[in-house]
């Protein structure tokens, strides 16, 4: 399973998180380099009604373009796409975004599994997925797909997670390439650029 970090050049980074993940994102974002050459997708569980809050918070922490993902929009390098509240977000073969209002998965919409799974098949070994803090097991099945298609699986060290259950489940069920403390994440992401 040993794999050099960033060995296959990254064409998409997806970060999934639930309870306790916002703090990690707010720690990562100010430290991101601004010439990131791949798209970053954020899938975070949250209430359906406070739509722009997460987008506004992340926007204020980086010079990268940050926006809520629009239906049929293409994933472009150097931009941050936030999965909208109450929709699943899928990636098409042509790297455009499809939104989907189907049944919740793991009691969640957006579900991290749904986005990880569809992206795994599209980006294969050029995909990096990071799973953060949370208190359900969404993301675990998705990370398995990422592994199957040769992508890179990164999990937040459960000891540094506010809600360790989600990363713990992932560590138990999926062979991660990397386990990272939250404070080392920005550095890891910046190096994916090289």
């Amino acid at each position, binding site marked *: 399973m040993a794999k050099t970090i960033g060995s296959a050049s990254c064409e998409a980074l997806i970060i999934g998180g639930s309870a306790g993940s916002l703090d990690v994102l707010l720690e990562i974002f100010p430290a991101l380099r601004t010439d990131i050459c791949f798209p970053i997708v954020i899938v975070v569980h949250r209430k359906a009604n406070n739509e722009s809050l997460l987008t506004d918070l992340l926007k204020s922490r980086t010079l990268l373009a940050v926006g809520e993902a629009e*239906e049929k929009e293409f994933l472009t390098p150097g931009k941050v796409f936030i999965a909208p509240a109450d929709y699943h977000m899928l990636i*098409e073969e042509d790297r455009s975004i499809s939104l989907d209002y*189907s049944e919740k998965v793991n009691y969640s919409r957006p579900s991290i599994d749904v986005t990880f799974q*569809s992206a795994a098949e599209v980006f294969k070994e050029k995909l990096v997925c990071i799973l953060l803090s949370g208190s359900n097991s969404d993301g675990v099945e998705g990370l398995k797909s990422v592994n199957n298609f040769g992508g890179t699986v990164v999990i937040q060290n459960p000891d540094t997670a506010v809600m360790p259950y989600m990363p713990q489940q992932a560590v138990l069920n999926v062979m991660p390439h990397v386990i990272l403390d939250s404070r080392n994440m920005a550095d890891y992401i910046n190096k994916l650029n090289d």
Partner: protein
Amino acid sequence: MIDNEQVEILLNDVLENHGYDFLEYSHASIKRRIIRLYGLDNFVSFAEFRYTVRTDKQYFKRFLEEITVNVTEMFRDPSFYKSLRNDVLPVLGTYPFIRIWVAGCSTGEEAYSLAIVLKELNLLHKSLIYATDINPSVLEKAKKGMFPLTYLKQYSENYRQSGGLKDFSAYYTANYSLAKFDESLNRKMIFSTHNLVSDHSFNEFQLILCRNVLIYFDKELQHKVFNLFDGSIEKLGYLALGSKESLEFWPKAKEYKRIKMEKIWRKL
């Protein structure tokens, strides 16, 4: 696991044997629905699945119901319904007769929400709501106007946030685990199958509601459906879409004016 090629094969079979065209649906979504159904129904091989979908009429009913997304809500996006209540329906109220098309109505929650607002504005008596869907079995449910009681707390909260002032429970009677909505509401509804992909315009409307349907279509199909709607909306009529859908990239979009911040456009 089912791959892209097999999805293509299956969808071609469905078109050829049953006349439903899903080839222009967003690929990632429909593929996920297909894989989900394959897993739910414990098929052991793609060949078996394909054969069943092709030849078993009864199973095809289920296929159609599961492959399309039938998740909906009453008063979904309260601010949208507030805008209908305050900005759109009062304008339509000046007409002698109001024709509304709810396209892709699924199990009918939006049609009943609309009927409630019309009733409160004292317009329901001169309105007619055409509620259509590709799928005959969801229309059967819609006609009954019975929704799971467990959702009613959320619906009544949505209703209140949308500017509803009455006691929401006045509109239904609880019947075991279901809430049966008042028959005065669906007396003004006409339910019919209609396939946005292959069927034509069938009337002229002052308002078309089509929310969270177009997200499942690819861009070309979306534009075809916008053209169909364009041919079915009267001058100065309205088109309402889901919260993440937009007319923006459709060539004729400039002939429509957006209402405030909502996904509602008025034909100029």
